[in-house]
């Protein structure tokens, strides 16, 4: 692991000042479950680390507001997962939390940093002798003609097909969440849907954040579809595993038909993947299994499967279908 210097600010302003003075190679460190992990693997090698875990002002979250839910970027995943109001009002958000990682890691990881977790692509993490454009731009992509079970079917480019591995961002993108950031240039808000980039020809650039920009909070506008939601996650084992396919869905029913539909996919795309195609199938229709199935298929209409991940076209469509059936049941509950 490369040596680094370490700074521990106690306010967001101090953190931003430290970053401004840090220059290239300076990184914010929160729970460490991604950054420190990748430093151990030699994938990341920051020269300066700014430890933001003691910015207590960013650790609070409030799920009771009348207009939006507000999550300080440093709220712990475990605390958010355990929030009773969230479980009732937005089960998809709660499930996306407790179905991720293990309780140990959820105690460490923070909801802001979690958005930025990096791909689990074995070629990216493993390094030489396999090429990876994300790890070393321009070196090629060994995954494309290699073992592609973990590759993305949606949003991939010739340069990279690495899957975005997270759960929480998938649920958030379904609910039109917004991320507030702080940088030396001041505050700004970014729709979550615009936070992550598709790889294109620069897979090493994963987000639209500037290098010196800090996520300070996540806001989720209240939705009538919150209670009729679920985060459905299919894995290789029952727990403590990344998604093979996942679906965050939310529906509001009115007069027997879908009045509001939100569908997002995980485990199959290069970024948290909202599917307007699936939502359009649902809107105005009664939420029958057949309609749900059509929605699932619509979400994968543009999928480009490889060899080992081709089964995810059907698996992913079924995941959406099943998630919609769960969501319907919840939406119908008085």
């Amino acid at each position, binding site marked *: *692991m490369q*040596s*680094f*210097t*370490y*700074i*521990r*600010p*106690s*306010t967001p302003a*101090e953190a931003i*000042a*430290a970053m401004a003075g840090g220059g290239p190679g300076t990184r914010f*460190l929160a729970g*460490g*479950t991604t950054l*420190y*992990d990748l*430093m*151990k*693997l030699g994938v990341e090698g920051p020269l300066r*680390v700014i*430890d933001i*875990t003691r910015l207590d002002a960013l650790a609070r979250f409030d799920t009771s507001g009348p207009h939006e839910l507000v999550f300080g970027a440093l709220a712990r995943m*475990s605390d958010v997962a*355990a929030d009773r109001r969230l479980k009732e009002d937005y089960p998809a958000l709660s499930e996306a939390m*407790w179905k991720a*990682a*293990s*309780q*140990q*890691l959820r*105690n*460490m990881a923070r909801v802001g940093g979690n958005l930025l977790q990096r791909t689990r692509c074995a070629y990216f993490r493993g390094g030489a002798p396999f090429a990876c454009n994300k790890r070393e731009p321009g070196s090629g992509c060994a995954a494309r003609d290699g073992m592609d079970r973990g590759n993305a079917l949606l949003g991939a480019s010739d340069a990279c097909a690495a899957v975005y591995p997270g759960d929480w961002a998938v649920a958030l993108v379904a609910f039109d969440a917004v991320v507030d950031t702080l940088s030396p240039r001041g505050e700004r808000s970014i729709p979550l849907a615009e936070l992550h980039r598709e790889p294109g020809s620069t897979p090493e650039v994963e987000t639209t954040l500037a290098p010196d920009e800090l996520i300070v909070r996540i806001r989720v506008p209240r939705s009538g579809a919150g209670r009729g939601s679920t985060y459905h996650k299919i894995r290789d084992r*029952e*727990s*403590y595993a990344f998604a093979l396919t996942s679906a965050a869905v939310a529906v509001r029913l009115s007069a027997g038909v879908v009045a509001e539909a939100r569908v997002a996919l995980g485990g199959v795309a290069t970024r948290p993947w909202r599917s307007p195609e699936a939502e359009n199938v649902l809107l105005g229709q009664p939420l029958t299994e057949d309609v749900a199935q059509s929605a699932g298929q619509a979400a994968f209409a543009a999928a480009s499967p490889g060899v080992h991940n081709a089964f995810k076209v059907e698996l992913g469509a079924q995941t959406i279908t099943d998630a919609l059936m769960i969501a319907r049941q919840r939406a119908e509950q008085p």
Partner: protein
Amino acid sequence: MQDKTSRPSPLRGAQSKQETAGEPNTGGGLLAAHLLTRRQFTAGSIAVASGLSALGSACTGCDTPARSADTSVRLHVNGTRAEVDIDLRSSLLDVLREQLQLTGAKKGCDHGQCGACTVHLDGRRVASCLTPAVQADGREITTIEGLSPEGGPLHPMQQAFIDQDALQCGYCTPGQIMAAVACVREGNAGSAEQIREYMSGNLCRCGAYAGILAAIQQAAPEIGGT
């Protein structure tokens, strides 16, 4: 803003300074290695002469493994305060194991994927292998060694693991027990299903999961929290 790197941090060697008595029960510093007896790795078995106690002349007088120290942290480990000079890159697990000789927490994967390194940080269970030691500065740390007093009665969870034969090789056991205590305190031990979900971050290859579940169910009422 506190810039740790700007603080003078004279290198004091790898040894920790124990501020109070009550050294953890594994005992023994780096330089005590030549006194190592088999008792130390087979507590529970008898100690016999041979092997490890004999050291070649070629070895004596050599330096201890080099370890760069670039900052100093105050760790509150098992009720004891220790100021430790650390390499900023060190994980909490490595500092506990190599500098404080608290080897109860284990390194099964070093990447937060197995749970064997679980300790409590400010009362929460964490993967110590993915926790930079510097982040534990000023925090309360409890390891398996601090769960019950040395020579005193076992913690109810430790006793339950024995009663329910909730282990075989024992390598994952300290992590399982630390996770289990936290699981109960968090209120996540309400049902068998909930325990299995909230213990799924601790892998046991011997397959003692049934015993572990039974042990948690046995100990939970004594610990409280659920």
